[in-house]
């Protein structure tokens, strides 16, 4: 009996070892462990053995079955892994074919990207963002910004007026704002000092060439407090210029005239494309035209006459003072990204949109 079991076991082990694939292994399993096989039958018939053989025979048969089952399991894993490898090796793709495309992501317009960059610089400097109407009144666009009646910007050659047009000097006449500055006065009407705001938005002037479009975008700045100085304006714009154009930048203030600031300045940033006006190729720098400075915005200390328009809202010109500035967003973007023509901003060619944002 024991001998027979040993024989079966050896025979089965040999069959298992010899199985070349999972099918042969399965055949071996059926032959030695299947319903009709000898070993299971032996186990089933243990009870019929003579009592003195029953224990030893049953134990041996059981051990043999377990050993075979384990051997089959091991062999099964071995064979399956080998067969998988073989299948995988045959499942060969051309890895150089194009990928499955995901929908390409879209881009923010360069104007928006630049606007956000500038906004974030000033938010970091403690400014809030305010917005105002694009269709404005003569009062906010000119009068309250201390524009003399004779100021040339009021002419229909320089400002878009809305129909029906009565008198261009009537404070209630409607126009398309020529700058974001009207929001200075509106903001001061709404909020007593201190006030720190920037005002991004669309503005309009009848002009069209490579550096002018009838619609463009500005960012206005206004800071009014008891102790704001022209040096603070310089420091604020220096921080701005370095954030946008690089840490090495310097700014300089040039005297100028704007009706709503006194003193008024134009602000230049040191050219980031050259050294002292000479570009890397040894030629005169095309960006700053060899001057080493690039004009980026107009600014100044808020004119006392502007405060007079909002005196009742807490702006006594003897008690408060402040600075204001205004810059063109597209101009900043053109300088920074080398865009040659302002009109490209409104062309919206997708191939261009894809380059930024």
């Amino acid at each position: 009996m024991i001998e027979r079991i040993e024989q079966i076991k050896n025979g089965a082990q040999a069959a298992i070892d010899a199985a070349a694939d999972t099918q042969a292994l399965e055949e071996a399993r059926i032959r030695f462990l299947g319903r009709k096989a000898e070993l299971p039958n032996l186990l089933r018939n243990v009870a019929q053995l003579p009592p003195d053989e029953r224990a030893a025979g049953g134990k041996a048969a059981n051990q043999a079955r377990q050993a075979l089952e384990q051997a089959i399991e091991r062999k099964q894993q071995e064979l399956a892994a080998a067969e998988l490898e073989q299948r995988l090796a045959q499942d060969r793709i051309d890895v150089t074919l194009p990928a499955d495309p995901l929908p390409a992501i879209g881009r923010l317009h360069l104007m928006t990207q630049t606007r956000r960059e500038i906004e974030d610089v000033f938010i970091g400097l403690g400014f809030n963002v305010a917005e105002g109407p694009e269709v404005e009144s003569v009062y906010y666009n000119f009068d309250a910004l201390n524009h003399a009646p004779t100021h040339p910007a009021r002419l229909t050659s320089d400002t878009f007026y809305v129909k029906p047009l009565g008198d261009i000097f009537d404070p209630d006449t409607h126009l398309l704002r020529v700058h974001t500055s009207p929001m200075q006065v509106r903001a001061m009407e709404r909020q007593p000092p201190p006030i720190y705001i920037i005002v991004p938005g669309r503005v309009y002037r009848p002009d069209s060439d490579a550096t002018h479009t009838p619609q463009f975008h500005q960012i206005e700045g206004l800071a009014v407090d008891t102790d704001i100085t022209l040096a603070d304006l310089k420091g604020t714009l220096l921080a701005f210029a370095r954030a946008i154009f690089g840490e090495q930048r310097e700014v300089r203030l040039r005297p100028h005239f704007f009706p709503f600031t006194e003193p008024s300045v134009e602000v230049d940033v040191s050219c980031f494309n050259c050294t002292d006006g000479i570009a890397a190729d040894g030629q005169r720098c095309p960006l700053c035209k060899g001057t080493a400075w690039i004009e980026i915005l107009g600014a100044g200390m808020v004119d006392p006459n502007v405060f007079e328009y909002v005196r009742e809202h807490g702006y006594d010109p003897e008690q408060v003072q402040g600075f204001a500035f205004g810059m063109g967003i597209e101009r900043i973007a053109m300088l920074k990204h080398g865009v040659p023509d302002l009109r490209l901003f409104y062309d919206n060619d997708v191939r261009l949109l894809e380059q930024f944002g």
Partner: protein
Amino acid sequence: MRVPLEWLYEYCRPDLDTQVLAEGLAMTGTEVERVERHGVDALENFVVGRVIEAGRHPDADRLSVCLVDIGTDTPSQIVCGAPNVEQGQTVAVAKPGAVMGDGTKLGKARLRGVESDGMILAADELEIDTEHVGIMVLEENGLRPGMPLQEVLPIATDVLVVEVTPNRPDCLGIYGIAREVHAATQTPLQPPPWSQDPGSEGEIEDRITIAVECPRELCPRFTARVFEDVKLGPSPPWLKARLMAAGQRPISNVVDITNYVMLLTGQPLHAFDCDRIAGARLTVRTARPGEQVQTLDGQTRTLDEQMVLIADADGPTSIAGVMGGARSEVEPDTTRVLLEVANWDGANIHRTSLRLGLRSEASTRFEKQLQPEQALEAQAVATRLMIELCGARLVPGTIDIGGPGPAPRTIRLRDARVNSLLGAPIDRERSQRILGALEFATAQAQDGLDVTVPSFRRADVTREADLIEEVARLDGLQRLPATLPSRHGACGRLTDKQQLRRRAADALTAQGLHEIVGWSFVAPELSERLRIADRPAVELENPMSAEQAQLRTTLLGSLLDVARRNLARGADTVRLFEAGAVYLPSADGGLPDEPYTVAALTIGSVRPPSWRDPQPRVADFFAAKGVLGGLLDTLRIPWSVESQTTPEPFLHPGRAAAILIDGDRKVGWLGEVHPQVAARWDLRGTVAAFEIDFDAAAGAAIATPLYEDVTSFPEVREDLAVIVGEQVSAARVLSVVREAGAPLLEHAEVFDVYRDPERVGEGNVSLALRLSYRASDRTLTDEDVAPVRERIVAALGELGGELRG
């Protein structure tokens, strides 16, 4: 304004390179747009010559062959084409190597076989006149052959082209610029050209009467002098050269003098032929309504009652401060000249010039508000020149109505205020020196300086801040430190709304849409193409073109424009959005409403084709709805759509929906563009789009989401297929299911739609629903879910729905 340096240097001559001078002016507030060169170059080749011999050219009747002494051992042979060349003349000669005004370099030439070693010059060749009337013959008067021509004639100068800001009419004259050069460079300033006045005060007897009848404020000063024995003729070369370099064409000595004095002092002048003034009387008065004047340019102008004119006995002769009339102009036979120099109200001149559409050199100066003192200054300079250049005899006396302007203003400049406004001190002595250089008088005060403003700065400098600008521009700006505001309590952040706007744009780009920036302007014809011509729009009075005559009321137009442009340039899909204002006229005449609007448009396949999927689906209504959902869900704005009963006129009527917030608040539209509308943009395929009043929708955004437990207890899922009539919308089915399933039903969605008349019946649709149930306090059992399911089935039954087996 053009400032020839040769002229400027008569009054202030800094020892500086022109570029350095320009930079110095720019950094102190006088913007120099550019530096130009006027006249000729390579000046060593321009000399005085004397014609020793002038003979016929052997082969050309019109040419002369001249021998010209130019101070060298042997005279030069020069071929000359001018008819007026004669032996003995003193002339201007250009030698080979000379560079002419247009940049050409003169070489030796052969003219019809005869060698010419240079050129005898005409005035226009030296750019000191515009007329070409033969060679220029110089007065001998001490000139020697070979003398450098530049010592005799102003043949070359750099010209600063200066942008004078509107607050500085005093810089509209050469002398005004000289003052600035003096202040900026500390170079000594010569006394003004009017410091010696050959004229005299007092009445002018018997010659002329002048009456100023308009309100004094419209004509603060009117002055006149009379000159007799005036000999009209050409001006001398030096004067012509200066006019030319400054951009004025020489005409005749009297007219040239008025122009020259204007360019020098900033003050316009007008010369009348005294004998052509009818009745020998000039009246300054406001016009009668509709009164007409014929101006110098030959036009007849109709005036109104606020405009000021000058009339003689025969009626109006000129429009005050704007343009003279033809009737009393100086003519070649004029011998008596009345020189009028007046001061006018700037605002009124501006108004007149605007209303008449008539701008002149005079009006652009007067409208910036000149000062009354300038009138006599100009008279003084002109008087000297009339005597010197026209041989005129001044009739004693000056008519002067109005006199000088108001007494000068004195303003306190506090040291402390200078420091607190600039953020850096400027010491008092320094301020005093700067202000002195600018001709402000100063006196010490306890806390600063008492500063008296000169007449020529009267309109511009009226307050302490203006004085601070003066000292800052000449000194402080360059030395200013860079500091940051102390920001008492200020704290910068974007508002919730501004953050939502940014996230909206980001949500759209994340879905593959490119942002565009369109024009606010639209053509009126656009609304007709979009079939919304009945909607009111903001219209412009003075658009740059008819294409830009209105403001947009929808962003769809710019999206379609940009889509077409990109498709025409070879793109095969476009996925675009824009965010910005539209402009809706207000009914009450107030400013228009400008709602911040977001719109998107998609044309072409939903994703790029590839070798795996050569023909992806074309983006349609549901693609646009997906983008809309991606946008609003990102921002946590609960939304829904419903079929539009009256669709937007530009949408496909069967594929148009209203976008709803808060259940029933309509904030926009979603749909496919009507094929006939799309065709107006040459778009053939499906164009899907939406537009939303963003700020209206953003109000519904859940700003602060609260925690919901989704992990403690599992959900139970099941699917249901229900057959309903086609007229029952999916939204209606879901809403009924959600209502019936509350509160255990957590989620319900349609995941399949099936139509088959055989199996679900004609006119019916089978919707497959995926339901999930969850309780927050226990794991749900079949016993929990079964009654909810029954309620749902019953509710669907009421809709006419029937479970599909």
